[in-house]
C-alpha cells in the first residue's frame, strides 16, 4: 500500500511557482526544494506538508501546457 500511494505528487502550481522564481529572480532555490520533496514521495515528510496542498479551486481549469514544453 505504502509503495503505491505517494504522500507527494508534483502539483502543477508548485512546479510553476518554482519555474516562475527562476524566470524572475534567476533563483533555483524553489526548484531544489521541490526536487527534494519529490525524491521520497512515499515518505510522509511533515516538513513539506505545504506541498500537499491542492491549488485554488479554479487553477487547473486555467492551467495549460503543451507537449514538449
Amino acid at each position: 500500500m505504502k509503495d503505491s500511494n505517494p504522500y507527494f505528487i508534483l502539483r502543477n502550481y508548485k512546479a510553476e511557482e518554482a519555474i516562475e522564481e527562476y524566470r524572475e529572480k534567476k533563483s533555483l532555490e524553489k526548484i531544489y526544494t521541490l526536487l527534494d520533496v519529490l525524491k521520497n514521495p512515499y515518505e510522509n515528510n511533515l516538513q513539506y506538508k505545504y506541498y500537499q496542498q491542492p491549488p485554488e479551486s479554479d487553477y487547473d481549469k486555467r492551467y495549460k501546457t503543451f507537449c514538449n514544453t
Partner: protein
Amino acid sequence: MIFNFDNTYAELSSILYTEIIPEKIQNPQLLILNNELLKELNIEKSDDITEYLCANKLTANPIAMAYAGHQFGHFTMLGDGRAVLLGEQVTAKNERFDIQLKGSGITPYSRGGDGKAAAGSMLREYLYSAALEGLKINYPLQA
C-alpha cells in the same frame, strides 16, 4: 574523456540520420546537474563538463535521427527537430543509454521555430522527470 561512447546508430544507413555540429554557445552556464544520474551512467564529472553538455566540446559526431510514424492520424516523416544524439553511452554494467541534447538548434528535420529550448520549459521537464523517478516510474531521465 567524459563519455564512453559506442555509437551503433551511426553504423546504420546514412538515410536514417544527419550529422550535425551544433552552433557553439558562448559562456554556457550550468543550471542543474543530476549527479546521481552521472554516476549511474558512468559519466565523468570533469571541470569542463558544461562544455561537453552543450556540445562546445565533442567526443563523437552528433547526429539528428530520422524517423517516421503516425502522428495526428497521418503517416509522417519525422526526425529530431531540435535535438541531437551526442552518443550512446556504455556503462560499467554494459548497459546502453543515448545521451541527447535538446534545444541544440535546427536540423534538416526541423519544421518551424529556431530549434532552441527555453530554460523554464526545460526546468519543467526536469521537475516532471524527477517526479516520475521518485514515484519509481520508468522514464527518460534528464541530466
